[in-house]
Structures are given as C-alpha cells and as structure tokens.
C-alpha cells in the first residue's frame, strides 16, 4: 500500500513536469498550428542555465527567474529566425524546421555548457517529508505547485487579458483577427515567449529531482507530446490531465514492470492513442476545410 502511494507521489511529480511541457506545446499549437518539436529544449535551457548560475554562486531566487528569461528569449528567437520566415511553408517544412531548431539548440547547449549531467539542491532543501507511508521531496511540492500555477495563469491570461484574447483570436482565425485590428505578429511572438518560459520554468523546477543534461530535450518533448495527444491536441485541460496520466503510467511501469522500460511507456501510450482514440481524451476531431 505504501509502495503504491510512493509510486503515486513520484508519478504525480514527473506528471506535473510533463503537464507543463504539454501546456507550452498546446499554447504554440493553438496560436500558430505549429507542432513545436523544440519544446523539450526549453526545459533543458531552463535547467542548464539555472544549474550554471547556481554553480557560479548566484542565489536560487535570482538564478531561477534568469533561467526562465533565457528560455523566453530563445523562444522569441526561435519564432523570429526560424518559424516566421517560413510562415507560408507547407506542414512538412515546418516539421523539419522545428526538428532542426531542436537539434541546433541541443548542440548549442552542449557548446555553451557541457556534456555533464547537472542538478542543484531543491529550493526548500532535500530532506524528504513523510506523508502516510510515503516520502515526498519538498521539491515535488514546488513542481506540482508550479504546474498548477502555470495552468491557472494561462486560464486567466487567455480569457481575461487583452493580449491573451489576441492570442485566442489569432488561433481561431488569423485572417479575421488581423482584420479586426489584432496584431497577430505580436500574438505569435507572445505565444512563443510564453510557451518557452513555461518550458524553462518546468526545467528549473524539475532539475533537482530529475537532473538535466544537454540531450534530454527530445525525450522531454516526446513525453510532452504523449501527454498532449493523450489529453487531446489543443486542449489545455487535456494537457494537464494527459501530463499527470503519463507521469503516473510511467511511475507504475517503473515500479511494477521494469525501470529499464519506464521511458517506453510514454511511446506505447502514443501508439495506443493513435490506434484507438486519435482525438485523445478531451479533444474533438477536426474537420479540414476544403
């Protein structure tokens, strides 16, 4: 029983990370229709930058926001240098561009930092708390809290602010949004910046628990995709639920089947979703207009 509880705790912790990645991913997809394969790199940028700064003696409360800002800058650069010049390109080109950007960032990460695995201390120390029969790291609470905060922020931002409504309008119909005077270019910039910031934040929060290195971005992106697809592409609630579910499935796989194949569970979920329910749990089937 306490074993199951322990798996649940660790499942929810990593699940919250995947949920944050999936939310960032959903934001860009909704605003631009681009499936951003470089989403996982933002997580790495956040984690590596924070690790480097903390390693250099910068206090956490300065290093963490700086790392998020670094991610945000890269997000805007990604949009301006790689996505915007190819706006009218076919789907295939956009897929290749974001994959290329992801590989490029991975290489840049290796060049700027190094090939080592990094971590730093949890924000509130590393002494585990006892809850029932399970132990929980204080950092897990930071991660879970962070994801909930991101979700709440997005809900507020997209529905209650002018800029957020601009993104939603751009998402549902770019041309119409431009016609009613919404600056769709700014909306796109903003969605890439926000999405990258969310990814970087996930990296900053997660690194004390999951560690980070220059090459984990693809894996992170894949987990994020799995979460998004399980929840239903385009649905923020789906991203949250999908992320938590993937985390739980992964923890159960590691606990009860084989820790060697814990990463495999996400891919198996992707394949199952594609076979059985392509629209995901909360998504609607999209009818293409001809």
């Amino acid at each position: 029983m306490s074993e199951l509880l322990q798996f649940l705790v660790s499942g929810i912790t990593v699940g919250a990370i995947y949920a944050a990645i999936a939310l960032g991913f959903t934001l860009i997809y909704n605003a631009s229709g681009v499936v951003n394969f470089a989403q996982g790199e933002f997580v790495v940028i956040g984690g590596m930058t924070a690790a480097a700064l903390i390693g250099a003696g910068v206090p956490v409360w300065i290093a963490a926001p700086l790392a998020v800002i670094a991610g945000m800058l890269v997000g805007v650069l990604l949009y301006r240098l790689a996505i915007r010049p190819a706006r009218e390109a076919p789907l295939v080109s956009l897929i290749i561009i974001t994959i290329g950007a992801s590989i490029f960032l991975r290489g840049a990460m290796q060049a700027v930092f190094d090939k080592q695995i990094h971590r730093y201390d949890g924000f509130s120390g590393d002494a585990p708390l006892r809850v029932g029969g399970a132990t929980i790291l204080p950092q897990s609470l930071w991660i879970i809290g962070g994801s909930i905060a991101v979700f709440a922020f997005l809900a507020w931002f997209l529905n209650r602010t002018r800029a957020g409504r601009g993104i939603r309008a751009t998402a549902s119909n770019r041309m119409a949004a431009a016609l009613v005077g919404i600056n769709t270019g700014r909306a796109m910039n903003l969605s890439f910046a926000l999405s990258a910031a969310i990814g970087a934040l996930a990296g900053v929060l997660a690194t004390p628990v999951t560690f980070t290195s220059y090459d984990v971005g693809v894996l992170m992106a894949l987990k994020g995709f799995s979460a998004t697809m399980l929840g239903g592409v385009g649905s923020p609630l789906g991203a949250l639920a999908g992320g938590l579910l993937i985390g739980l499935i992964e923890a159960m796989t590691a606990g009860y089947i084989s820790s060697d194949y814990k990463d495999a569970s996400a891919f198996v979920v992707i394949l199952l979703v594609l076979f059985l329910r392509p629209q995901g749990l909360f998504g609607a089937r999209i009818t293409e207009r001809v």
Partner: protein
Amino acid sequence: MMAGQRPTTSAAPADTGRHAYLQNKVTRRRAIGPGLRTFLIFAVLVGLGALIFPSSYFYRVGTLVWINTLAVTGIVVLLGYVGLVSLGHAGFFAIGAYATAILPNYGVPSPLAMLSGVLLAGLLALVVGRPILKLSGYYLAIATLGLGMLIWMVLSKEAWLTGGPDGMTVSGMNARNLFKMVGLNLKSAEAWYWVAGFTAAIGAAIAVNLAGSPSGRSLRAIHDSDVAARSLGIDVARAKSRAFVISALYAAVAGGLLALANGYITPETGGFMHSVEMVTMAVLGGATSVFGALVGALILTALPQVLTVFADYEHMLLGGIMVVTMIAMRRGLVPFIADLWTRRKS
C-alpha cells in the same frame, strides 16, 4: 505598342509547350528507360570512385556514402514523393543491421539473416503505419519518433541478445568471397564498396521507376493535394502505407549492409540522431530526387571526415542545415542548382 506586342508574348509559351512535347517524344524513343539510365549513372559514379581512391580508408568512407545514399533514397520516397516525415527510420535501419548481426549466431546464413531483418522491418512498418497514416502529417513524425526510441531502447537494454550499449561484432560473410568466385581478388574494403555501390544503384533505379509509374503518380498527387487525390479514387491511407513500408525496406537493407561491411554495430545505428541525420541528408540534397539523396549523403558523410571540428558541433551543424535549407532553398541543393543552371542558360 503594347497591344501589338501581345500576340507574340502569348504565343511564346505555347511554342515552348509544343517544343517540350516533341522533346518528350524523343525521350520516349530512347532505348533505355529512366530507371536503367539512373542505374548506369550511379554505376559510373561508383566506378569513378574506385578509380580515384588511393587507400582502403577511402573505400570505407565511400562504402558509407553508398549505404547512406540507399537509406536516404528511402527517405526520398517517403518525404520527397509523399511529403511525410519519419523521425524513426534509424529504427528500421537498426532492425536490418541487428538481424544481420544476431541471426548468424543461431546458424542462419548471412544473406538469409539480412532478408529476415528486411522483412521484419517492412512488417513492422506495415502494422504501425496503417492506423497512423490515416491522420495528419504531424502524427507520423511523432509516432515514428516514439517507435525509433523504443527500438533503440530495446537494443540498448537487451544486452543478452544485442550486446547492450557497447554493441556487437558481426560474423558472417565477406564480400571478398563473392568476387573470388569470379576470379577477382579484391581487398575486403574494396569488395564492400562495390557491393554497397551496386545496391545503391539498384535502389536508385527502383525509386526512379516508381516516380514515373502509376503508383508513383498517386504518391506525388498525395504530396500536393490529399483531397484531390482522394477525389480521383486514390486510397490515400493505403498509398501512404505502401510508401512507408517501401522506405522502411530501404533503411533495413542499408542497415544490413552496414552491419556486414563494418563488422561491428552499436545501438546508435538505431538512435534518434541517426534518424535526424537521414532526414537532414535528404533535405540538404533535395528530397525529391535520388540524386538529392546521393549529394546529401555524400556531403554529410564526407564532411565529418574532412572537418575534425564537425564532431564537436555536429548537432548545431545538422540542425542549422535543416533550418537554413528549409528557409532558403526549400527543395534542396540539387533542384536549387538545377534551377540556377537552367536560368543561366536561358
């Protein structure tokens, strides 16, 4: 003035049209088809390589170029003809390679081992591809990314079978013996070079045949407009699935050849970066033609040998090439240069 010029300008295109049609008739009267022509061009290039290579090292790199060309030709069929991105083709490559490495340990002769690997890869592509290919292009990219990682994971974890992360040696046939049968005494590196070149030439010829055939037209139609293709009676999901299987077969044959020629393989042959490399080669050279596959494979295989810094900045270079090519010359080097050439001539 303007009105007087009109008829000439409007007549000119019609003339070139008719001219092109005549040209086409001439082409058709040629004795050899486009597939055979491609085969011969490739064969000449293979021979040219052999003429200028000064050492076994060059033959080994040349072998790699042809093996990569073969694998990338599969990507050309999938990406260039149909417009689908796979991020897991290294998985199929590795299935071909590992079957060729593993089965001989259980008494299966090498050629048969390679064949089983190729069939296994095709079967897997068929089973996995069919449901996914009903959906939009993103899903295949994501699903193949997952599938490739899964295959890589199995290869790295099941050490009892695959030797784990360290890889395994491949015992079995040597191409030298093939040539000995006809009385030629070649070095092993030379023998594999010829075998790889010959296979790549056949692969290219097949891909060119496909492009000009009824099935190939269906694939190219899907590339341009899915909806129109359907309206003409083309079963889009089925056609895509065929292309996916064909391209998986190419990758698996290339994998089997690599295992035999190298005598040693590691799980990285099935890794994500290898999949990305294949796509980058296709994109760089030009994914619409087999010559694009050759040029892309040549550049990205030879470059790391020449530039030692390549190893340090491999990721940045590969990623940068993908992004820049897609933005600046979307169709890749070969069509880009061909365009420049025709424009200069006219």
